[in-house]
């Protein structure tokens, strides 16, 4: 009896489902993500062409700029509104990682510097770091084995 009610309810939920605006979300993610990457590439080119920087140095400074801008926009309270529109477009680039640390640090300020800011900063970013390290380890093993066997 109970399960039949639940089954009926699930179909009722389908009837009144609030549809996610997938096309809009995908387009916005494409535009914001693409726009951010294009802007970063433009700054990169400026550093290389007019600054005389090496490619690896220029890549580093571009990352720092994206992180700094994200931090500023987050601290001023606009990033969450942008993120609502852009979705993965801003979450996948390093702006997403920077935001995840800064937003937690701001939010946890009320619990103090040590137990709040310092501990809280990695609340969301910790997962990225863990999976980054684990996947780097696995790729490293593959690379090492490939070298031993002579195909990498």
């Amino acid at each position: 009896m109970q399960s039949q009610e639940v089954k009926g309810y699930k179909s009722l939920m389908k009837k009144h489902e609030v549809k996610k605006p997938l096309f809009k979300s995908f387009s916005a993610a494409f535009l914001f993500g693409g726009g951010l990457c294009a802007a970063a590439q433009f700054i990169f080119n400026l550093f290389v062409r007019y600054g005389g920087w090496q490619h690896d140095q220029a890549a580093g400074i571009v990352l720092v700029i994206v992180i700094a801008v994200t931090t500023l926009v987050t601290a001023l309270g606009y990033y969450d509104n942008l993120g609502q529109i852009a979705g993965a477009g801003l979450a996948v680039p390093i702006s997403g990682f920077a935001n995840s640390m800064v937003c937690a640090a701001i939010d946890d300020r009320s619990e103090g510097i040590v137990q709040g800011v310092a501990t809280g900063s990695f609340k969301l970013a910790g997962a990225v770091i863990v999976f980054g390290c684990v996947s780097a380890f696995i790729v490293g093993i593959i690379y090492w084995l490939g070298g031993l066997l002579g195909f990498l």
Partner: protein
Amino acid sequence: MKGTWIFNNAPLITAGGAVGGKDEKNGPLAAYFDSFFADDVTQANSYEEAEGFFLSRAAQIALNKASLSSGDIDLFIAGDLMNQITSATYTAAYLNAPYLGIFSACATVCEALAMGGLAVASGKCQKVLVGSVSHNKSAERQFRYPNEYGSQKPPTCQKTATAAGALLLADKGQGIMLESVTVGRVVDYGINDPLNMGAAMAPAAADTICKHFSQTKTSPADYDLILSGDLGKMGRELLFDLLSSQGYGPDKQRLKDCGLLLYGEQKDAFCGGSGAGCIASVLAGYLCNLLQNRVVTRILVAATGALLSPNWVKQGNTIPCISHAVSLRVGDNNA
């Protein structure tokens, strides 16, 4: 199944206090609030402390309206959404009154009215203050993500209100009659998406409302308004269908949702408002006003609560929900 208490000597709601934040001030019900805080922190050290400020101010306003001081209160019953209901405790310390802290998530104010009504009807208490509060920022922190996190919210999600409501129950005087209460049971239809609470809670609301009609031998036509707490757009549609399938289909114009009333068409509210302060402030401000001015004479308010914790949801469990209903009336005999 039991659960409905009809008060022969109905306790009276003699005063109410509704306090909101800045988004509530921009909402369609702004005129019915007693006071607003200009910002989210309001000189407090944290959002959690600010939440305590909100409830304290709502309680103080209700007392002022009734020309009482906190020393006149026999009992203060309140709750909120924070862990260990710290905001209600803060207010209890401020009032320095006998205090019972309760938790039914967003259905807290109706649980408080039920218990307060019982305390007054029993004759043990003459004046009982009840209330509940929620704060958007502290709720985001506890239940979702840090406030400035740029994640994309789905259209089914709801916005926790930054608001508080307090109501004064008395055994005599002039006021709105708390004629009956229906205490709900926990209903779980297997929804595990915490960003679709309206759908999770609608069956609980339907269960309690149907129980109320059958145990008080009333029908939807006996009420000018039937209100759910915070089901939002989708939840309201679901509730309407569930009630209709049980033979208690109300006139759809009379089926309202406090979360939808609070924010109207504000876009960042998504499916509507939610939170323990949402229904409490709408009830203490808007609905009490409608009743006092006889725009409506009898309403059924079914507050809905999702009884989850962040860890409970992360563990993949489904969301247990509850709804408590109160029937409020103005009549000739208490005019």
